[in-house]
């Protein structure tokens, strides 16, 4: 079906051409303007973030390799004492009652496991109450907000049937009736069946989405599936290097590498190109489904800072002042 119907009269003609049974109408353009509008808002809010991040990184990437700041591991190799053994991080919105969690700072520069230091992780992001129902809500939302139900059954008016009375009113021994489109007839219409493209779009409240990310991160940390790495720079673009690295560290079958920017280092992009189970992701794409789908989660230091900053900002913010402004209505999207 190359020429999809665009206007209502074309649609009815198209339906008649196909027949009268229940069927799907694939890719009916302008069928659901509401979902398209909201999708565009969602994309545009993310697009702006992407543009800012890529612009920032391209300027840095254009600089020559000699001017690039050496990674923590390179500094460690030059002089082990220059990189401190335990690094403390300054945390926003410190929690008075619960201590911060601690994690090793590792590196991808060698296949063997070298620890460069130890980091503090905020308890309100990495040690949140392990609520499975919040994860469930987030997963369901991720699945359903994009869904469009294309099922459609004809109602009485849509059936191509004569309006002739089927049999005389009396003396047939049968129940009285009119035309063949009624419910009682075998070939009649279904009264309240699915009617056309129906969007199952809904927005999960912001608190649930923020807490979903915090809960997923807490689960990953609690079950030893979270690793923090100085950066995603690797010495070679050989796929076997990554395989060796993951095997020696027992990181499992699948891994998700998260960086601050969406412009990834060259070597790692080539190395992971053939592996569908090892994936690269920028921070703005972080979601509950991907975190749970992959067995381990690897964050860079910059990504960790960004994630904590955003999640703590939204957890500690009340929107009562801007509740009824036009900005805030679509800011959630």
């Amino acid at each position: 079906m190359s020429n999809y119907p665009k206007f209502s009269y074309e649609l009815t003609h198209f339906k008649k051409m196909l027949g009268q049974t229940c069927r799907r109408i694939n890719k009916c353009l302008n069928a659901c303007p509401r979902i398209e509008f909201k999708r565009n808002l969602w994309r545009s809010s993310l697009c702006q973030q992407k543009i800012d991040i890529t612009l920032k990184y391209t300027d840095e990437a254009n600089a020559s390799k000699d001017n690039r700041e050496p990674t923590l591991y390179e500094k460690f190799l030059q002089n082990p004492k220059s990189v401190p053994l335990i690094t403390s991080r300054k945390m926003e919105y410190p929690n008075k009652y619960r201590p911060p969690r601690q994690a090793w700072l590792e590196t991808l520069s060698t296949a063997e496991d070298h620890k460069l230091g130890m980091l503090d992780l905020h308890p309100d992001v990495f040690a949140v109450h392990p609520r499975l129902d919040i994860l469930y809500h987030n997963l369901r939302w991720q699945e359903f907000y994009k869904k469009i139900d294309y099922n459609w059954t004809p109602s009485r008016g849509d059936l191509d049937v004569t309006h002739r009375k089927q049999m005389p009113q009396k003396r047939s021994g049968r129940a009285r009736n009119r035309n063949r489109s009624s419910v009682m007839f075998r070939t009649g219409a279904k009264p309240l069946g699915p009617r056309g493209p129906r969007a199952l779009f809904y927005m999960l409240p912001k608190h649930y989405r923020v807490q979903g990310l915090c809960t997923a991160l807490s689960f990953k940390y609690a079950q030893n599936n979270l690793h923090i790495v100085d950066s995603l720079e690797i010495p070679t673009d050989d796929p076997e290097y990554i395989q060796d690295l993951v095997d020696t560290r027992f990181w499992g079958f699948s891994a998700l590498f998260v960086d601050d920017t969406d412009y990834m280092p060259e070597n790692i992009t080539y190395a992971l190109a053939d592996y569908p189970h090892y994936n690269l992701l920028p921070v703005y794409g972080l979601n509950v489904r991907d975190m749970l789908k992959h067995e381990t989660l690897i964050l860079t230091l910059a990504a960790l800072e960004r994630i904590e900053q955003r999640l703590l900002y939204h957890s500690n913010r009340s929107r009562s002042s801007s509740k009824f402004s036009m900005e805030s209505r679509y800011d959630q999207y």
Partner: protein
Amino acid sequence: MGIEKALRMVKDLPRVALNNIKNSPMDQKKPHNLRRGWGKNKTHGRGHKGQGQRMTLPKLGFETGQKPFYQLMPQEKYYEGHHLKRQYPPLSLLKLQRMIDLGCVDPNEVIDITSICMTGHYNLNVHQRHYGVNLTEDGAEKFATPIIIEVQWASELTIATIEKLGGVIMTRFYDPLSLIALKDPEMYFKTGKPIPKCKLPPTDAVEYYSDPKNRGYLADPDKIAEERVALSQKYGYELPDLSQSDKLSLMLKRKDPRQIFFGLQPGWIVNLVDKKILKPKAEYLQEYYNS
């Protein structure tokens, strides 16, 4: 169950993945009952004919044309906001004199709202917006004891009668949470809550408590002294010299605007069983209670 305990449990459980996660049973909604089960055929629980079966029942509260109960009573402007207004249940000077005579109240101590409530002859219910004692003039000619009293509302004549006899009257505001502590201190200390910090009066009461004519606690003491003289001249009595009296130290006893009990500071927890007082150590608590 605590968060830490839950996280420790999670460590030993299998890895949380897409095939492991279910919704909480409390959140799972029951499906709409279609009433197709055994015994629900034919009329589907609706009976025979009429509005019940035909879904034409009238709206809730409808009385077939008669003015319904919820529309019978008209609104009256005079009681607008009655549920928000402050109330000061009255205590007459006659009753106060009777309480002194019967020994319910000790005139040799400062008479506080606590001592008045503890007599059992005065009803103060904080949850009904009672904000304190209103000392009325009824029995002013029979009042004959010099007392030191702290009330929440007093008229000019009341102030005059007490000062004529060589007493001292002060008006003082307490917020509802402080009143709960003041009404029955023993019960309050048993709850284990710290002594509350008394809040300042609301905007429509600030003027009253800053006025020296009302002997308000926020007023200038020098101006109060002037007003004492003025009042004595107005009502025509000789103002007694309080500096010669025995109870001078009691008369000069004043509470801080944030203080509720004499000798106790806000933030302290009083342990009656072990007979100890616990004071806050943390800086943020000390900062809050000292502000």
